[in-house]
């Protein structure tokens, strides 16, 4: 299956912030996502992630849970405080415990995926849907 360049055109305007400290994983996702035409920024710490959030206003955040400075859950909690209208967050973790998944979703993540269970292509495909879903969710209370 060849990935067409049509996707590239369609996704050009979408900016993804990937908060991930494992370089190999980050590079791999970047390869797929940029191939599909997304604009990707990688942050290797929670602090960098916050800085990028403030400066670049990404459309979606892909968040790892195990980071050198603080946990993804702490970031989720702070995001709610510091950026009330923050973009949708998708947690990508290697922890698949139901309690962790519940906690992530309760903190406001739009999706929680176990990295080893999904391919980069699948994540790439789902991104527009997540953004759309988050937009609907945020629009409703305003109406």
């Amino acid at each position, binding site marked *: 299956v060849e990935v067409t360049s049509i996707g590239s055109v369609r996704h050009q305007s979408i900016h993804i912030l990937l908060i991930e400290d494992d370089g190999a994983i980050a590079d*791999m996702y970047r390869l797929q996502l940029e191939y599909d035409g997304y604009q990707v920024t990688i942050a290797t710490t929670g602090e960098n992630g916050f800085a990028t959030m403030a400066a670049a206003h990404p459309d979606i955040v892909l968040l790892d849970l195990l980071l050198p400075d603080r946990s993804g859950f702490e970031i989720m909690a702070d995001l709610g405080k510091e950026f009330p209208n923050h973009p949708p967050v998708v947690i990508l973790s290697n922890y698949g415990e139901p309690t962790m998944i519940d906690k992530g979703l309760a903190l406001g993540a739009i999706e929680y995926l176990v990295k*080893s269970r999904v391919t980069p292509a699948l994540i790439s495909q789902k991104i527009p849907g997540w953004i759309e879903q988050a937009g609907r969710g945020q629009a409703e209370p305003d109406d």
Partner: protein
Amino acid sequence: VILAERIAVNLTALGFLLLGIATAAEWYRHRGRARAMLTLALIFLAVVAIIGRVQDMIGTSTALDALTIVCFLISGFFVLLFRAAFLPLSRPALRAAAAVLVISCVVGVADVTVFANSAQAITSILALELVAAWTIFTGEPIVRFWLDSRNLPSVQKARMRALSFGFTVLLAVVVVSALGGTALQNPAAVIATQLIALAVVPVVYVSFAPPALLRRMWRLGEEVELRRAIQDLVNFSPTRKVLAEKAVGWANRLLGADGAFIVDADGALLASSGIDADGVDRILSAREEQADGAINEDRGAVLVVALHLSDGVGAMGVKGGPFTPLFGSDEINQLEGYAVAVTAGLDRARVTERLAIIEKNKTQFLNLASHELRGPLTVVRGYVSMLEAGLLGPLNDRGRKAAPVMSAKVGEMNALIEQMIEAARLEDGRLMLRPAEADLCHIASAAVDSARVDGMREIVLECPDQPVLVQVDSERVQTILANLLSNAIKYSPNGSPVSCEVTIRGGVARVSVKDSGIGIAKEDLPILFTRFGRVSTPQTVHLPGTGLGLFLARQLARLHGGEITVDSVPERGSTFTLHLPQFAAPTLTG
């Protein structure tokens, strides 16, 4: 009648003399403060009896009368001191008792000297004072012994009660004689009181030196209960510490001892009751000096036996108290028999403890390994999928052949890791089901579809016309079925058909996965569902697998209130059936 009276009086005196000698001999063999007090009390009583006989022979004298009264009072006082030796009295109480003793001695001597020729009334009052003093000295211990005996092991209880009873009778004889006065001086009454007093001798004797037969009889009553309790203790105590703590309690009861302890093979004190660590050290160091098992100690008899544990030799010991029978061969046998049971129990608990640690380590390892494996696997899997998709550049023919194989193998690896994580979760009790109403046919159909693709094999699915409703965690049930299906494909390598049939009958929904593969020998069936249990035969040894699949499948089925059964004939094939309770849907109204 006079002769009979004389015989009775002499017999009683002889009885008390023998009792005094016997206690003195006992004390000489096993010294102790309490024992010394009792010995002195009985010796003074014997002296009273002997003076009476001497007076009979050489005639009475004032000095002998005074001596009789003083000895009699002192004997009572020593009964009180005996009681204080192991149930301590307060200092003021002891001082008051000593004061009563001194006053009574003065009164007693005055009675036979200054007031010797006074009116009957005065001597009677003085005599009453003496009897009252003796009543206080012995009456308090009598009541205390009786009350305290209630919570004691049967042997100690019997001994304390014997002593209490013996002194009660003596006290009654003394009081009745004093109050009766001349009315009791006829020969028949004298013979009766003397014989009653004589009967006290064996009762008091067994209270401090009961023969083995009597000890065994006393024990008999609680032995059955004791044995059962010891059995429970040895078989079911969760840890060695708990076992040892309970075991010392029972050792005390078993032997009627005052203190017991268990020392581990490394010399550490595992448990003790009624004795402190220093006491144990003293006993053990004294034991090293003496080769024999039973040794004497200043506070009473001690018995120590070896515990031949798997790690080395430990020890169990008991320490006697004032009412412990001195340990004889009967007690040594008892303790040695008990030691065998305790040794077995301690070794069993050690094995259980070690197994628990191994189990925990295994689960932790499984947990860690599987989480750590997910990271690298994510990268490999991601790049392989990109390679396969052509995202990393065009592949040549050989590359295009290799990529799907790599992808399939990485997928297999991923499935195995998921199984390991699920198993670890299950063992930790962290696995939570999310049950919802579902059609078992839908779940089976999804599992069959994905097994068809993965296994590249034709699978026939048969479902009833009506939906088969179950209340399950669909994802988990699909995992179970995927497992059964992949096994069916894996163990029927000849490409023979695999079928999957959903049925419902009698409130039980079933999914049967049938293959015509290599089958399983009957003797191998039990290990199929154990963790890491894999049947290893020349036909299967080359096939990959963790041995977790069926273990997980059965555990998951059981969590749903269901079960997995197997029916297999070697060389003909196997049928694995998942049984699940049917979901009783609430009746719809309207």
